[in-house]
């Protein structure tokens, strides 16, 4: 019982209470109307998750991570509502670019169905570019790394290419590729391909020589050596490139969807920002953040599973 109480009296719950109280403060005159109900409903939903997690999750670490994340969300919401509608910190002139939280959350409710479609389209776009990048970069990296085990000229070349922003390729992609979507996929592909190729090659170059010797004494064939020995041995390093590619892909999503896209989160953000509707644009940005966090979570699960043979 006492342990349960200890799980309830935690800072995130106090922050939730403060957030509710903050709603009661009088509003400043503000250009964009707040919809405090949406903030309260959303915060209450998050609070419900927090309560369930606090009481139901037995393992200490995941419970603490989740409650810390939620605490940060509440702290940010408190700051947001105070800085905008309650105290108008940025000053009257800037009110249009700093919508209060309730106004942004209202967009989630209003735009729920189109937002889901945007999420789907963006994920498919990134998945296409990312997967094509991964399935081409890893075999090439294995092949080059394995055949150039001595020279590292290729290493410098890939470093050179991975330092070029994929945005540079946009005009060429538009001219050379048949559709705008193909050009967008190409941007994501480029964001993934070079870091994955670079990390695969350096992973191959760093494979413990004694492991390779051990495989050689078993007379493994070329193909087996590459895909059953070198690939798993290099996998921890390959994951560094895979993660970098994923991060950059998301950073470039907004730019990639500037190329004539008609849907997607990046398109959504662009579109509203261009018309000066920062309330909707911010709703899009927050959605991107949530999607990125969720996909990163899945990515980490996959990584943990594939590298379960490694000492943590």
């Amino acid at each position, binding site marked *: 019982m006492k342990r349960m109480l200890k799980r309830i009296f935690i800072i995130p719950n106090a922050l939730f209470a403060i957030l509710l109280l903050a709603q009661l403060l009088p509003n400043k005159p503000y250009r964009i109307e707040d919809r405090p109900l949406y903030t309260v409903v959303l915060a209450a939903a998050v609070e419900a998750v927090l309560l369930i997690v606090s009481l139901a999750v037995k393992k200490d670490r995941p419970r603490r991570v989740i409650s810390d994340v939620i605490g940060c969300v509440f702290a940010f919401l408190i700051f947001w509502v105070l800085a905008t509608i309650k105290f108008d910190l940025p000053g009257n002139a800037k009110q249009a670019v700093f919508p209060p939280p309730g106004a942004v959350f209202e967009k989630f409710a209003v735009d729920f169905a189109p937002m889901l479609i945007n999420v789907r389209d963006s994920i498919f776009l990134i998945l296409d570019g990312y997967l094509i990048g991964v399935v081409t970069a890893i075999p090439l990296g294995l092949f080059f790394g394995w055949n150039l085990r001595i020279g590292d000229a290729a290493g410098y070349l890939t470093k050179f290419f991975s330092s070029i922003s994929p945005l540079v390729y946009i005009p060429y992609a538009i001219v050379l590729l048949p559709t705008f979507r193909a050009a967008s996929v190409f941007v994501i592909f480029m964001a993934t391909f070079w870091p994955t190729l670079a990390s695969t090659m350096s992973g191959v170059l760093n494979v*413990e020589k*004694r*492991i390779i*010797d*051990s*495989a*050689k*004494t*078993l*007379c*493994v064939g070329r193909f*087996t050596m590459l895909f*059953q*020995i070198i690939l*798993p*041995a290099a*996998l921890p390093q390959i994951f560094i490139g895979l993660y970098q590619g994923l991060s950059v892909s998301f950073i470039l999503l907004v730019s990639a969807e500037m190329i004539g896209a008609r849907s997607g989160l990046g398109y959504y953000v662009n579109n509203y920002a261009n018309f000066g509707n920062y309330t909707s644009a911010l709703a899009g940005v927050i959605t991107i953040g949530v999607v990125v966090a969720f996909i990163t979570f899945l990515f980490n699960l996959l990584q943990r599973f594939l590298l*379960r*043979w*490694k*000492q943590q």
Partner: protein
Amino acid sequence: MVGKIEIKNLSAEYADKNGKFTVLKDLSFNIQAGEFVSIIGSSGCGKSTLLGVLQGLIAPSAGGAYIDGEKITAPGHNRAVVFQHYSLFPWMTVQKNIMFGLKQVRDLSRAECSEIALGFIEKVGLKGFEHKYPFQLSGGMQQRAAIARAMALDSDILLMDEPFGAIDAKNRSKMQELLLSLWDNEKKAKTVVFVTHDIDEAIFLSDRIIMLTNSLGQIAAEFEVPFPRPRVHSTIRETPGYVSLRNKLMSLFYDENPGAAAGMEYTI
């Protein structure tokens, strides 16, 4: 009987920034099929290089090594290898490691591989650990698994490079007895070439001990070890001739290694 090894005028060299330097020079000796031979010598004298040639991983600069009359140019199915470290693949469980080895070397179905693997896992005392990854095992258990894999390959020749070098003394004795019992109980008499820098280990295991010189990897001395088998640690020290053989080896070993105090443990 198969598994006879001949080393004829073998030289091996490495290249470094000062040019080439010779590690083995004009080395010749034979190992009979089914014989257990230990190679001893101090650190850096060329033991691993010699074994590397036998494994087919290092090309000699002159001369060569022959198995049943055929020159070694690459690794082959007639040899199985155990290293001091990293014989096992860290991303495969114990059983998968053994099955992987079997699949490469022997033409067997998956079920047969699995069965043979489990059999050897039991023989080396790792029952219950077949689904563990190497990092979950102690160094000694890892070497048991590596030995199980090498034995499962059913090769004519077993090449071992200081396989117990990183294991504590008590476990090392157990591993030595395990190795001998596996070797004694094989239907097929395997030839074993065992590299070590531990004199007691060499005496306990071998039919014959070949001591290399400190430089240029030549034979400093050769000793027959006539003690009857099966051998166990609890009685080997009482075998007549044990003490005198050990003393002879010790004095030669430390003569060959000026600067090392007698009785001092040698490390790799």
